[in-house]
């Protein structure tokens, strides 16, 4: 790829603590083109913080620094706050973990979607409503005319997440960051949501960054996988080669998951080597 959509070089995120600054992301570099990149790691490995730093969503007193952080050729670190805000949502969108917290509980799904359309495309009410129904249809919600009139508590988690995806895709972003988009959902719903996400991202030629703790899932839906450990990337490899992962941490993560059809008396446990976290 000649010019990557997103280029991250030496990204660091730190929070002040009792013993001075504590770095949670420690010099991470990667690029994303029009492809699906998976970020996996345990909680605390810095994967969500990386996604948030790209959108400038690190809450104070957190500090972000990067040698290079560009989106479609623009240097994000040099943008004024207002310009950064305009980029967020419109060109880079983010799907969060739990639709029950991310959707506004006192607005109907239709009103929330229409608001997004009106904000980004300056449409009339009727037009925004029509586009909202189309958007819900695109994420495979059955009977969208009924669903636009419902409140978030009246729909299932899976439907809520589909509505969220519809909302995030409404402005036509070029890059979608999905932070654990299916962790709050049932396993049987998960696959459907990811297939829809995959389908839309491919059809629109977008870039996707999927953050997840589930290696199997990331391997199935992404082209490339970045394995995070203690704020660093310990391994980067094509998703289909995951079974041949060389880093002991990646191998350990793969081995410790119980799988159907395997009978193991005891699951192998990760033996953490301090050298994995060293620079």
């Amino acid at each position, binding site marked *: 790829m000649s010019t990557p959509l997103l280029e991250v070089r030496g990204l660091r995120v730190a929070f002040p603590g009792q013993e001075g600054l504590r770095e949670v992301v420690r010099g991470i570099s990667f690029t994303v083109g029009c492809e699906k990149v998976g970020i996996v790691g345990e909680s605390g490995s810095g994967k969500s913080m990386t996604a948030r730093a790209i959108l400038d969503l690190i809450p104070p007193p957190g500090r972000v620094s990067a040698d290079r952080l560009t989106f479609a050729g623009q240097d994000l670190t040099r943008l004024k706050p207002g310009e950064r805000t305009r980029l967020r949502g419109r060109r880079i969108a983010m799907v969060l973990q739990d639709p029950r917290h991310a959707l506004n509980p006192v607005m109907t799904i239709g009103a929330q979607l229409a608001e997004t359309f009106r904000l980004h495309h300056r449409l009339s009410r009727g037009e925004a409503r029509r586009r909202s129904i189309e958007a819900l249809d695109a994420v495979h919600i059955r009977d969208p005319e009924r669903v636009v009139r419902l409140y978030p508590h009246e729909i299932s988690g899976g439907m809520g997440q589909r509505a969220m995806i519809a909302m995030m895709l409404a402005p036509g972003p070029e890059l979608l960051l999905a932070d654990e988009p299916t962790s709050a959902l049932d396993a049987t719903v998960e*696959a459907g949501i990811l297939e829809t996400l995959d389908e839309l991202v491919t059809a629109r030629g977008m870039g996707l960054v999927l953050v997840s703790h*589930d290696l199997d899932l990331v391997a*199935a*839906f992404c082209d490339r996988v970045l394995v995070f450990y203690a704020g660093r990337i310990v391994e980067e490899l094509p998703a289909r080669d995951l079974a041949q992962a060389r880093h002991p941490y990646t191998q350990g993560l793969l081995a410790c998951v119980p799988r*159907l059809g395997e009978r193991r008396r005891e699951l192998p446990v990760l033996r953490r080597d301090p050298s994995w976290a060293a620079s």
Partner: protein
Amino acid sequence: MSAAIRINGLTVRYGPLKALDGISLTAARGACLGIVGESGSGKSTVLRVLTGLVPDWQGKVEVGGRQLVGARRDLAFCRDVQMVFQDPYGSLHPRHTIDAILDEPIAIHRLGDPARLIPQALADVGLPADVRFRYPHQLSGGQRQRVAIARALLPEPSILLLDEPTSALDVSVQAEILNLLMAIQERRGLTAILVSHNLAVVAHMCPLVLVMDRGRIVEELDRDALDAGEVRSPQARALVAASRHVRSQASNAGR
């Protein structure tokens, strides 16, 4: 083999909704029974009825040969039946030290000397002794779940109810907790019921798995059937697909 838990025609209504619709099941003494299903299938409600957290239910429930009535449980029952909850962030008192948390069952059930029992309980679940005087927020999720397990094991129950004990944890920590639970269950000969939405986790620990959907048990699976993928109900098939799907996709992409 005698039954530790026998449930017959258990029905729970929340208003017009039947959370449990006349289910029957038996948990053999010393065995681990798995219940799997999606959210809203009623799997946790079974455990809640057993522990007396549901005030109103119909049917017959027998634990250790004694009939349960309503939501009242006596001290002997509470000592004999213990539960581990999903979220170790919510199930430990945030302002109590681990020492105070573990002292509670000792005081309630008059188990003996805390100075002897607490270090032993921590060692049993693989926690270092210095954890005793810390607060829950100073521990990791996996360590907290170990504390919750230690608390449940202190009264030396014969029945352990596990409600999604690893769902809030990382896969690496999940493996540690599953190993711990299996070792304890075998060593102490506990009767266990493990409830989870993750079929692979349940199948790993339990020789017998019940699949629930909308308040009913739709299928009973043993390990051989699961290994061979011999499932009949659409719900069980969906769960098998969900735990395998990702892998089949991965292998397709690789071709």
